[in-house]
């Protein structure tokens, strides 16, 4: 199973995980990213490059499928205005054994967090806004997966 969705709507983690659990693998790993409401943040606005995002995510999923023996990969990434506590991104992977599921899940989220064509704008309670700057740490992490 391979599923990639770039959407503004929220999603139901239980439904996504149930589909992954049903694939017959021994291990399901997942990561859910959530908006943190720190420093007076009232919303995060995610902009993306629609013509590019789905194709890019699809390509990185294919790379994960080539690197690990996976029975299923599911990625959901939201865009638009998201408030603290809202889910931003979900990565779920299934394999016969845990290591492949865990490693591929970490690989995919590292990529999504550093290389996916998304930009985040922070909205604060006092009316201020700020575009989030890219973190050198994230780039280094994603590069770490390169053989």
């Amino acid at each position, binding site marked *: 199973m391979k599923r990639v969705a770039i959407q503004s709507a929220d999603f139901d983690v239980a439904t996504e995980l149930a589909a992954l659990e049903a694939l017959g693998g021994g291990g399901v790993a997942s990561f859910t990213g959530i908006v943190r409401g720190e420093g007076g943040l009232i919303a995060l606005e995610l902009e993306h*490059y629609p013509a590019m995002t789905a194709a890019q995510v699809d390509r990185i999923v294919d790379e994960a499928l080539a690197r690990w023996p996976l029975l299923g990969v599911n990625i959901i990434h939201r865009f638009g205005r998201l408030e603290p506590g809202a889910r931003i*991104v979900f990565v779920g992977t299934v394999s016969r054994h845990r290591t492949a599921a865990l490693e591929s899940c970490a690989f995919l989220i590292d990529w999504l967090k550093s290389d*996916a064509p998304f930009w985040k704008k922070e909205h604060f309670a006092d009316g201020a806004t700020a575009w989030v700057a890219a973190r050198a740490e994230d780039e280094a992490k994603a590069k770490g997966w390169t053989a």
Partner: protein
Amino acid sequence: MITIVYFAWVRESIGHDEERVERPAPGVTVADLIAQLATRGGGYAQVLSDPAKLRAAIDQRFVPLDTVIGDAKEVALFPPVTGG
């Protein structure tokens, strides 16, 4: 003609998310295009005068700024991506 698309603070400063421009001459790079657009002044000059802060894609693929535009259909200019 080619399409240029802008994202995040590049888009905000320029004031629109997409425009059509004359196809650049053969050999023109993304960096050349950025320098040319910056001469328009205003929001263009403001965000395009420091190319080190910019990233680009040609036909939906990330490329270094010294990439020749060639017969591409779409060039995208944006800040480094900040992911999900």
